[in-house]
Structures are given as structure tokens and as C-alpha cells.
């Protein structure tokens, strides 16, 4: 087991190195619009150096004058010491900005994820046990509608209904305009109020796949021999489904749930941007659109690490949960 984990970890580090190099090379070959805009602004100040000199100076200070490979190793050397440089857009160290915004994203993601689990798993089980019934059709159709809904369209519909027509929530942001006047409890409630619509969007849009995953796996289990045996023994349908079938369905479920835990830190790029929630997603979106290389590099690396971590975690969990799986 330890050998397996160590091997997977080593492989992950190697993959991560490749991924970051690809990303770095891509970022470097793009026109660094941010540097150019800044050089343009600086050169237009009265009595300033010409544009070319500014751009050379900025490139030097940002380490853009080295070759891609040399530049990558400079970046890597700093990155392994968790020094990702200063964000160009936010003008603070990248890691500082990151630690400011990550927890909001995490809380949002965690709440949405818990709600998803609470709704998707029971519905998936019901759909599987009553395959091809009206309930199954309704749940399957609902899951597919959720998968098919474009986030931005659904979020806009919610905004129109709840923010504009009913006026229950604000259109954008995480705090209301009276935020500063509220006491601690009020501030918390105000933030919670602003998170309702984003979380609703997240839940609806991503609930479908988990629901379908539960249904498929439950169906697979229900078709297996030991369920037939359980039925043949004369066990009640209740015991068969909840005692024998559901427990076995939990194996793939725990794997996928464990695998998606790191993803809770990833933030919701589109949803956060739509509702202007200052989490990691919206912050990175602004940085990426502005051509902020240090922050974008950090964000992409972070996302890659989360993916790798998720895969690793689900593999390990699979071996831990299912006694039939033995890793040599």
C-alpha cells in the first residue's frame, strides 16, 4: 500500500512538472498585454522614458527576458518554496491574495456539495430501485436537465426571478450596502443571504452527474448475483435494497466523493464570476483576463494539484473501502 502511494505520488509530481511547464510555455508565448498596457501608461507620464525602455525594464523585473526553459526553472525554484511572486493585478504576493479569498470559495463549495449529496444519493437510489417507472423518468430527466443547463443562463434566470422580480436577494456581490453598520451576527447573515443564489446555481447545475452516477451503480449492484441470492432467501425488499444493495453502492460513491473533496477548494469560476463573489474563481478570472501571469500560473498550478490529489485520493479510498481490491 505504502509503495503504491509513493509510486503514485512520484508519478503525480512528474505529471505536475510537465503540466506546469506546458502552462508556463503557453503563458510566456502569449502577448503579455498587462506588461504592455502598463508600459504604455508609464511612458505617457510627463517626462518619462520611452515605451521601449519601460517594456524592457518591466520584462526584466518580471523575469520575462529569460528564455522559456530558463524562466521556467526560475519559476519552479521559487514555486517549490511556495513563492509565486507578486500578483500584477492585485499588487500583493499571490499567496497572500489566495489565502484571503480561498475560504469563501471553500465554504460555498462545501455547502453546495453537502446539499448535493443529501439530494442526489437518495434520488439516485429511488430511480434505480424503480427503474423505468414514472419516478425514474422524472429523476433521470431532472438530472439531465441539470447537466444541460448552461450555468450562466440558469444564474441569470435566478437573478431575474429572485433579485429583480421578488427582490429577495442582491444581484451581485457578497455583502450588502449596510454591511459595515451590522453587528457580527448580522454580517454573517448578510453574507449567507448573498450566498443563497450562487449555491443554488451550483447545486442545480452539478447535482445531475452525481444522481446519475448513483443510479448507474445502484442498478449494477441490483443486477448482481448476491442480490438475487438475498431475494431468494426471502429477505424483505427493504432489507435487500438498504442493507445489501445500498452498502455496495457506497463503494463507488465513497470513492467519487473522496475524489471530489480537493475540488471543493477549486472554487466555481463561472458561478463566482456571474455573482461577483470574491472567491478564488472570480479573483482568478479577473487576473486571467487582465493577463496577470504570476496569479494565473499559480491558479492553474493549484488546479492541477487539486486534480492530481483528487485522483490519488479516490484510488486510495477505493482500495481502503473495498476489501476485494488488493494492490500489489
Amino acid at each position: 500500500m505504502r509503495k503504491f502511494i509513493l509510486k503514485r505520488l512520484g508519478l503525480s509530481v512528474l505529471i505536475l512538472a510537465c503540466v506546469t511547464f506546458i502552462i508556463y510555455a503557453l503563458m510566456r508565448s502569449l502577448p503579455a498585454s498587462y506588461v504592455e498596457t502598463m508600459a504604455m501608461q508609464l511612458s505617457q507620464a510627463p517626462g518619462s522614458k520611452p515605451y521601449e525602455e519601460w517594456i524592457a525594464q518591466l520584462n526584466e523585473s518580471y523575469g520575462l527576458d529569460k528564455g522559456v526553459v530558463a524562466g521556467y526553472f526560475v519559476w519552479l525554484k521559487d514555486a517549490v518554496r511556495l513563492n509565486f511572486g507578486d500578483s500584477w493585478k492585485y499588487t500583493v504576493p499571490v499567496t497572500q491574495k489566495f489565502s484571503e479569498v480561498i475560504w469563501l470559495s471553500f465554504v460555498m463549495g462545501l455547502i453546495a456539495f453537502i446539499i448535493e449529496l443529501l439530494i442526489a444519493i437518495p434520488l439516485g437510489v429511488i430511480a434505480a430501485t424503480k427503474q423505468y417507472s414514472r419516478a425514474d423518468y422524472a429523476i433521470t430527466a431532472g438530472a439531465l436537465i441539470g447537466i444541460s443547463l448552461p450555468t450562466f443562463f440558469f444564474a441569470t434566470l435566478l437573478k431575474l426571478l429572485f433579485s429583480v422580480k421578488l427582490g429577495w436577494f442582491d444581484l451581485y456581490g457578497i455583502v450588502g450596502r449596510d454591511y459595515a453598520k451590522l453587528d457580527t451576527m448580522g454580517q454573517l447573515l448578510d453574507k449567507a443571504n448573498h450566498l443563497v443564489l450562487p449555491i443554488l446555481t451550483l447545486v442545480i447545475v452539478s447535482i445531475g452527474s452525481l444522481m446519475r452516477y448513483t443510479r448507474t451503480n445502484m442498478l449494477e449492484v441490483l443486477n448482481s448475483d448476491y442480490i438475487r441470492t438475498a431475494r431468494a432467501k426471502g429477505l424483505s425488499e427493504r432489507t435487500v435494497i438498504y442493507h445489501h444493495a445500498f452498502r455496495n453502492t457506497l463503494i463507488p460513491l465513497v470513492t467519487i466523493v473522496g475524489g471530489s473533496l480537493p475540488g471543493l477548494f477549486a472554487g466555481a469560476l463561472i458561478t463566482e464570476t456571474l455573482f461577483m463573489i470574491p472567491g478564488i474563481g472570480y479573483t482568478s478570472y479577473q487576473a486571467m483576463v487582465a493577463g496577470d501571469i504570476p496569479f494565473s500560473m499559480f491558479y492553474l498550478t493549484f488546479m492541477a494539484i487539486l486534480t492530481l490529489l483528487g485522483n490519488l485520493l479516490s484510488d486510495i479510498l477505493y482500495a481502503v473501502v473495498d476489501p476485494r481490491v488488493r494492490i500489489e
Partner: protein
Amino acid sequence: MSDLQNTNETKNEQLSLNDDRRVRTLSPGALVAQRFFRNRLAVVGMVMLIAMFLFSFVGGLISPYRQDEQFYKYTDLKKEYAAVTQNADFRYLSADGKNFDSIAQAKFLLAQGKGETTFETKDATYELTEEGKDFYMISENGETVAIAFKDIVNKVADLSFDEIHAALVAYTNDEKAFTVADTEYTLDEDGNIMKGGETIGYITRFVISSAQSDVVISREYGEEVASQIAADASEFTFTGEDGEEHQYNISYDATAKVWSITEGTATYVYDSYASPSKEHWLGTDTNGMDMLTRLMYGGRVSLIIGFIVVIIEAVLGIILGGVSGYFGGWVDNLIMRIVDIFYCIPSLPLIIILGAAMDAMKLDPQIRMLYLMLILGFLGWPSIARLVRGQILSLREQEFMTATEACGIRTSKRIFKHLIPNVIPQLIVICTMSLGSTIITEATLSFLGLGVKFPFASWGNIINDVNNAFVMTHYWFVWIPAGICLLIAVLGFNFVGDGLRDAFDPRMKR
């Protein structure tokens, strides 16, 4: 089914028990089709897809408009023409050779307000006489010094102080005639002062000032405005000096006590955000283009992008997955590590960065669309490669592959002729599903302004307009139909894909 059984029964008499014709056989394809059409959701999805394809590809041909045809309309742009105020302050006119300065004027106002008949300044004592409504004569020792009035006398010809004085006395007392120095003057209803049939001046309380520097307010216009205001009219027409009729609106601002007169000028503008009508069933968008036609062409772009991206994905995925699965060993290892790397690249952020970079480079929208498809396709193949490899790993151990080897068939032919066709069912399912998700990705990017760009329409960039909160709340027809089209198309692909998955799976109960 019952008919079929009956015919079978009649035939049974002639056929022997182990005759193949006794059993109605269906080819595997027909079985799949049968299972597919029994799934109601799949059929609904099929109908949705056919509808969207017809809408996008045939609709564009039927629609009478082109996708970038702009519509115009005349609108009445209200331009501020003039402002009218009713004079509320006293104005003063000194008699010839007299001086009535501002200190005296202030003292007069105080006295008038208190209703006194005399007032003093530093050097003189004045008497005031109310000679008419809001009209006072100020005298010193019986000699007229000045007059104070609110009705303004506009001179046409030269008017002397006495003439003005007498005219105002008559006007404020509603008299029709007055005499100054043995000359007869008449006053008409509009306040015109006539001397022997000739207008020499007119009296009005309205002060009209032009709102545009190049417009001189004519006297006739002023009178017309005054009479319209008196009649409480809200709009009127007036034939100007150029002989053309103009339309004016009058609105009264109670706090400023100003009537503002606006002139409606017909201006030729884009017919943007027109409500749905007979000509434009779904109204027009911000550029005055027909929404329904844009939706049809947008559907074409969205669907074509979806197909091209999925074709790129499938080709790359089949080749790499097939090679990897068939050869195994280090080739497999290498390709699978590449797949791992691609899996690990966060695609949406990367596409956003590339989109922003393409913005900075100001690429031509058409080339940009091409790049978008290539990027999406290049980032999407690993899942297909994994699927193909997994299937082939199990297939290549089966007997028919040993047979192909024994027959000496070429390797490439063995992979692509004998192995790949066996993966086709799973491929179709995954391609259908990824068509849906590709369309969503493209729409999301276009929505963020980083995908398909104007003048091309796509369902995503049509919805882009809701970034303007006013459009979102007031013009539902601009973004809701596009969202519904998107939803129907993607849902159609997902329903069909789901139905196919069930239909291809022989373990499914029906």
C-alpha cells in the same frame, strides 16, 4: 405483436421445430433501435434535436432576413427647443432723466410687500401707487420717477416711457384703448399695442429663452407658446418661417416654474430592442438585427462548432487510444502519461486565458472561431482515448483477434477495421454526450465575450447582452429564447446519448 404471433402460429404447422424461420430474428442494430425507441426520454430527445437542426439549418434559408441585416426606424428624438418662464419679479423702468437705483428698488419691494404707500431712501421719500394688477407707479413729490411691473413690454418700434406707462396701465386694468399725447392706441387680446393699425409693441408675462444657440425665437412663436400655455396644452404644432410644420411638446416643471418646450425631430436610428411584432417575431437585438434570424444562424454556429470539436476529439482519441491499447508496453505507457497530463490541465481557465490573449491580439472573428475549435478539440481528446484504449485492451485478447493475426492482416487494418468498429457503440454514446458539453463550453465562453465574436452569432454571445442589467430586466426576448434553444439542443444530445447508452447495453432489461 398479436398479429405477428398469429402469423407465426399459422406457419408453425408447416415448419419443423428447429427451423430458424420459426423465430423472428432481429439484427443487433435493429435490437438496439428497438430498445432505443422504447425509451421515451430518448425519443423526446431525438425530436428535440431534429427540431433544433431544422430550426438552425433550414430556418436560416426560410427566414426573409440575413443574419447581419440591420433594421432602422424613425424615432422622435426630443430636443430641448426653448424654455418659458412666467416673470415673477418686478422689473423697473425709470422715467426719462430720473434715476431709480437698486437700493430704492429694494426699499420699494419691502414697502410693497407690507402694503405701505410711501418709502424712504437716504435722499428721498417716494410714494407708490398701485395702478393695476402687479403694476406700481413710483413718484416723488407728485412727479413720476419710475414704474414697477411684472408684465413685460417688448418693443417693436421705439416706445417712450409715457407710452409704456400708459400701455401697462391699460393692460393691467383690462382696458382696450389708451391715449398718450393726443394719440389713440389700442390693445388687443394678445397684448399687442397698436398705433393706427400698426403694431408697435406687445405685452406678455412670459419670458421665452431659446435653448439652442442658433435659434432665434420669433414673436409669432412666442405668442403661440403663450396662448398654448394659457390653454394648458401639452403639445402643439407651429408653422415656422421655413413653411414647415413642427411638432412641439410643452412640459411644466412645477418646482422650477419653467415650461420647457421640446421639439420632436424624426431621426433615423437602429431599431434596437424592438418588441416582438409581426415583422420580427422575437423582436430585435441591440444592433437592430432580427432576433429570430440571429437565433437560427447562432444555432448553426453553435452546432457546427460542437460537431467539429467532437470530430477532432474523436479522431485524436481513436488514433491515440487505438495505438495505445493495441501495442501496450512502452507505447501504451507513454500515451497514457500524455493523457494523464492533458487530464490535469485545467481546461476552462486555460481557454479563458487564451481567449483574453486573442482579444489582445484583435484576431479576425473568423480565424478566432477556428482557433477556438482547435483548442477545444485538442483539450478534449484524452477521455475518448482512455475509453478506446480500455475497450481495445479487453477486445484484443478475444479469439477473433487471434484469427486476424493468423490470417496475416496488416496491423493498421487490424486496429482500425477489426478493433475500432467494436468500440463504435461506446464511442457514439460518449461523442453524443460531449457534443452537449462542448456546446455549453462554447456558449459559456461566448457569453463571457471570449468565444465567438460579433458579427457572428452564437447562442452564447446572444445571451451576452444580459450583462447589461437593464436588458436583463426589460427585454426578456433578447436572452430567454437563446437560453431555451441552448437548453433544448444540449438536453436533446444528452437524452439521445443516454438512450443510446441504455440501448447498446445488452444487460438492460428491455
